[in-house]
């Protein structure tokens, strides 16, 4: 399970950016739960979360 301290710091540093918070939370959850290749998942989260301008 991801350290609460990490999540608190993450929350504090992304107060003005919900997309960043959502993305990094997903990344940390992924890192906590999964081992192995990350590239595909990271890019998938980026595509899902970063709005197209």
């Amino acid at each position: 399970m991801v350290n609460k301290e990490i999540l608190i710091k993450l929350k504090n540093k992304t107060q003005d950016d919900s997309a960043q918070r959502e993305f990094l939370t997903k990344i940390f959850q992924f890192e906590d739960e999964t081992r192995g290749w990350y590239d595909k998942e990271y890019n998938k989260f980026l595509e899902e979360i970063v709005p197209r301008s």
Partner: protein
Amino acid sequence: MRITDIYISNYRQYQEIHLEFPKNKEHDLHVIVAQNGIGKTNLLNAINWCLYGDEPHLGDVAKSLPKFNLEAKRQNLSMGITKAEIVVKIIAEDDMQHLEFSRSLLVKLEDNYEYEPEFSVSITFSSGDTDIYENNDADVCVDRYMPKKIRQYFYFDGEQLHNYFTGDNNTNIKETIHAISQVDIVTRVKERLTKITSDKAKGPGNVSDQLDLVNKDISKCEKRIKEIEDLITELDDQIRKSTNIIKVNTEHLQGKDNLPELEAKYAKLKQRLNDLESESDSIKSDIFKFLKEYKIILSFYPSAERTLTLIKDKESKNLLPPNIDKNLLLSMLQEHRCKICDHELTSDDEAKIQQIIQQIQVSSATSNRLMAIKSELARVVNAAPKYPVKKEEILQRKKLNEDNLAEVGKELQDIDNQISKFSDKEQVKKWHHERDEHEKLKIDNLKKQGQFTSEYNNIKVKLDDHKIKRTSILAKMDVAKRMLQLLEFATKSQEIVASIEQEMMDEVKTKMATSTTEYFHKLIWKKNTYSCVTLNENYELDLIHRDDYSCVGSCSAAERALLALSFTLALHKVSGFDSLLFIDTPVARVSDQNRVNFAEVLCEVSKDKQIIMTFTPDEYSSEIKNIFEPAATSSATLNTVNEDATIYNRRT
């Protein structure tokens, strides 16, 4: 977490042993005393083997005795038992949980073949519920209480305590602390985001340059297409103009269309007339020659015929002498020698010459004259009969020439009559000329138009290709734009994570340094010598003298061991894994008063934490014993039976 019991069956020196670690109210201190070789270190190995499946404190695995206890093996084999189990079971408690860690290994006793070990963890909660984990799940469970990565901070060799901060230990400590505090996850995320941003920064190539190039190609094609379209339009105009002129002039020339032909025919006939007139002059000349020649022939013919007949008659009668010189023959007779071959004449030769001379009646001069005119006479005689035919021939030529002249003259007259009907001869000529010119021009222009159309079609195909390429590049630019957006986002993510990482590393380090200092100040017997403990970026530990000097290098072995202990306790506290300490020979490297001091420290620590220590009898000297015995919750000795099995004798 604290250990309450350890059960060992058939493991190395331990045939069957049960170690108990009860706790009293003040201390949680446990002392085990044993001679060297009895199994102190293997007790440490037994705990490691049970929890982690290995034996890190074994000197040389390859040269070690079999894992299965030798005495137990003999006993089992004597009873006909060929397979038996090694079991190490650790009973522990953590808060209100009851924990049982159990590893068993079936061994084929004849050849010490080891089957797959089985490992299980059972957790019984205060509610009475029990969770059981096996093998890999059990390994994960152990990590929740005493992570394998930092086991050296729970179970360690006292002889090595003073060396804790030398060599590669610092790297291990840093990595371990980062792993415990999950800084390593943050670092991993940061590095992976760096890689992701780096990949995205490479992008789909310099699409902007590619677009410029393809746009230039497109402009070039479009410019040429426009030029060709203009040229084709111009040619269309010219062709249309020529077609109109041809049509109009053809209409103008309706009925007057044959003037040029008439004029050409007239010119041709005129030439023919000239030729015939020349021929007429020639015929007239020939007639004059003919008449002149035959006037002579015909007037001379009778006498010529007679003379020729006479010559032929003489010839037939052989009256004409051969063409021999009579005087030469006479000369030869006089000289009796041949003037031709220069040999002397015989009488027969002379007789023959005499005979020839007698036969020559006509003189040679006359004969020669007759022969000279003979051919001319023959020509006259032969030509004369041909006169009528020749005359007819030449008259025919004359007539034919006259007829032709008359015919050509008539045709010329007819054509002249037709041409003379054209009142606007020059205009008709002009129309003709103009139509001919435009017919040629139209053909040329149609040919050019065909060439330009072909080029136009080729460029059109090229243009389509360039446009497809441009569409593809524009699509790539969209991708690049999106990639840039993701890159900016991921870069910001990476920066956030990097700042979290830095903060966490700083905080963990500060906590570790502060906590180590606190423990050190609490435990050190020299209360006024040292100001604090510091940790640098690489977790290299230093002790700062009260006068602000770095002094870890001049510490005694006991002080360094205390520093290691303080750091270990700080690590337990900061990591949250507040478990026991198992120290094999804790004061082995400490001597004199420091040994007493260090023993007192451990005694003090045991108020807050379970401490299990193993000693040799020498190490467990009277001054140590005096400190530990009153505080020890349990005190035991390990003894050997037949040097093959160790037994546990608890004294308190």
